[in-house]
């Protein structure tokens, strides 16, 4: 028994060593920094220990703006993208002709380079001296006035960000959901059909519970992914996110470390820990809710 234990630990050692050095240690470090006031990474010195970093971050209007942006992004894009993906996958699995073509089209954004996607959104939304962008063209057809989506009002920018995020995460969700739908045994549908079950009821009482573990997985990872949004925002609005009022929590952390206002690892650490706490809380709530609605077999 003892010998086996030793062997087991030995096998685990490489993974534990890597995780320890590159994940656990930095995590603990971040946690410590977040309580060290005025930590300087060059001289490795700090003034004192306390909760001042947290109090600073929580009173920083930029941070509050970032929190607000992040929450809006999360709570708009996760339900919309998951619902839309579900709708499209159900549609995809109920058609026969051209199914592969549609599947390919829906999956294209997933294999497309981010910069290329950014370019597409530029053409769609960006206002330049020569053109107002495709979106404005369509709005003007309906008699609306021109809107600057990239440099204009807050809601317009938020709309573009949400639109972009939904569009980017959609393919993966569709892929996963289509395979989940395909794995529901035909017998259940046949049984329901013979019993005269309506299409809607088949969907809500059979399909949804059967794919609920997958759906739940997508919601959890969707929440976590959206909370960590940063690069997409940069791709759309450039690096000066605070000025654009479009910063996210991760963006704030980055700015505190390297940005124009950079050089504040203590504030960055505190913000990172706050983000961690938020994600943890939301995930726990998700888990609690899922206990009732997710059916593992």
């Amino acid at each position, binding site marked *: 028994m003892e010998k086996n234990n030793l062997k087991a630990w030995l096998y685990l050692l490489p993974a534990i060593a890597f995780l320890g050095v590159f994940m656990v240690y930095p995590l603990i470090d971040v946690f410590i920094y977040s309580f060290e006031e005025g930590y300087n990474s060059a001289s490795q010195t700090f003034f004192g220990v306390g909760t001042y970093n947290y109090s600073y971050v929580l009173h920083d209007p930029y941070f509050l703006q970032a929190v607000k942006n992040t929450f809006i992004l999360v709570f708009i894009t996760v339900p919309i993208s998951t619902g839309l993906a579900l709708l499209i996958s159900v549609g995809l699995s109920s058609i026969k002709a051209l199914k592969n073509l549609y599947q390919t089209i829906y999956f294209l954004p997933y294999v497309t380079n981010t910069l290329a996607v950014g370019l597409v959104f530029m053409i769609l939304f960006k206002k330049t001296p020569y053109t107002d962008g495709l979106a404005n063209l369509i709005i003007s057809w309906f008699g609306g006035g021109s809107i600057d989506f990239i440099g204009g009002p807050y809601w317009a920018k938020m709309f573009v960000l949400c639109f972009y995020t939904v569009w980017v995460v959609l393919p993966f969700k569709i892929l996963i959901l289509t395979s989940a739908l395909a794995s529901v*045994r035909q*017998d*259940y549908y*046949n*049984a*329901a*059909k*013979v*019993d*005269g*079950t*309506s299409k809607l*009821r088949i969907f809500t*009482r*059979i399909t949804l*519970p*059967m794919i*609920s573990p997958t759906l739940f997985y997508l919601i959890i990872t969707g929440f976590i992914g959206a909370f960590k949004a940063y690069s997409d925002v940069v791709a759309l609005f450039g690096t000066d996110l605070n000025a654009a009022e479009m910063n996210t929590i991760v963006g704030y952390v980055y700015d505190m470390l390297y940005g124009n206002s950079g050089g504040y690892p203590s504030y960055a650490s505190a913000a990172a820990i706050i983000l961690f706490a938020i994600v943890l809380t939301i995930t726990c709530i998700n888990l609690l809710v899922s206990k009732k609605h997710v*059916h593992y*077999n």
Partner: protein
Amino acid sequence: MVIIMKVVLQNLTKKFPSRNKKGGEVVAVNDFTFEIPDGKLVGLLGPSGCGKSTTLNLLCGLQKPTSGKIFFGEDEVTNLPAEHRGVGLVFQNYALYPHLTVLQNIIFPLQNLKGKDKLSKAVMTEKAYEVAKLVQIDELMDRKPSELSGGQQQRVAIARALVKMPKVLLLDEPLSNLDARLRLQTREEIRRIQRETQITTVFVTHDQEEAMSISDMIVVMKDGVIQQIGKPQEVYDDPVNLFVAKFLGTPPINVFRGEVKGDKLYIGQEAILDIQGVADQEVYVGIRPEGFILDEQGALGCELSRLEVMGRDVSVVSTHPACENTTIRSIIGSDSKVDLGAKTIRFNVKPGKVDIFSMTTQERIHFELK
């Protein structure tokens, strides 16, 4: 209040497009015409790929026939979608909804009722308990299907099919997922439930013993064609061709190559029966295991291999060069004495247990005894 219905199939045919590129069609069900009398238990029997499951799917409306008609009672249902046919279907793997409890599973078909048929929750629960009592699972109503044994799941599936009082109950290989002991028990159970409800029931099986033991009527099928329809014992005693004779009975019928010559039936050089009414020709001779009589002066000599004693009966295993089966099994009473040292064992045959079949068409040839 049970509606008892006969089921009529008229020239029912189902063709599937072939999977290979050359085209052509696979005829799963070929020109079926038969009538299932009301309130009876009918077994569709045949080897895999004979079209029995397709027939069941046509009956319940999950598949549409290529041609032909289906009637429930006087009403044609050929083009009626599955949900309007009022059939109950029990799937081979039961297809119980894993996320619902037993009660929720049984109630499920009732909750689909709309308009004037809509039932209150109390009535639904009452009906569910009624049918659960019938199949003896009323103690398990709060469990999930995964917490039940195979036999219990089977009962839940039957209860779910019965709860809406179907006109016809269809069972697809109902016993194939159960172990041997449970299979015996469950088939009695199906028989009992069918008797109590009086619902016209059709079940599909590849197991002839299963079909023989509980059916009022069996339909033997092969390659999409009905071979024979009748009461189990009649079909067993009076098969129309070699396939039916071979398919029914355990141990299976012993088939020999033989010859009819001058009003005698020969196996090898030995004349085993005096018959008349059959022209001289080579034939297949089928002898049921219970058709042998141990006799030292017997007409048929076989090479003795071994004895298998199974309680009441003794099964003599022997070989014969003209036999199509690898071994001959003959069942004799356990009081018979067999000399195990002897090389050859001699039998007489019971004329009623001997059938002869044409070498070319494999159809049965009827003969008279002299």
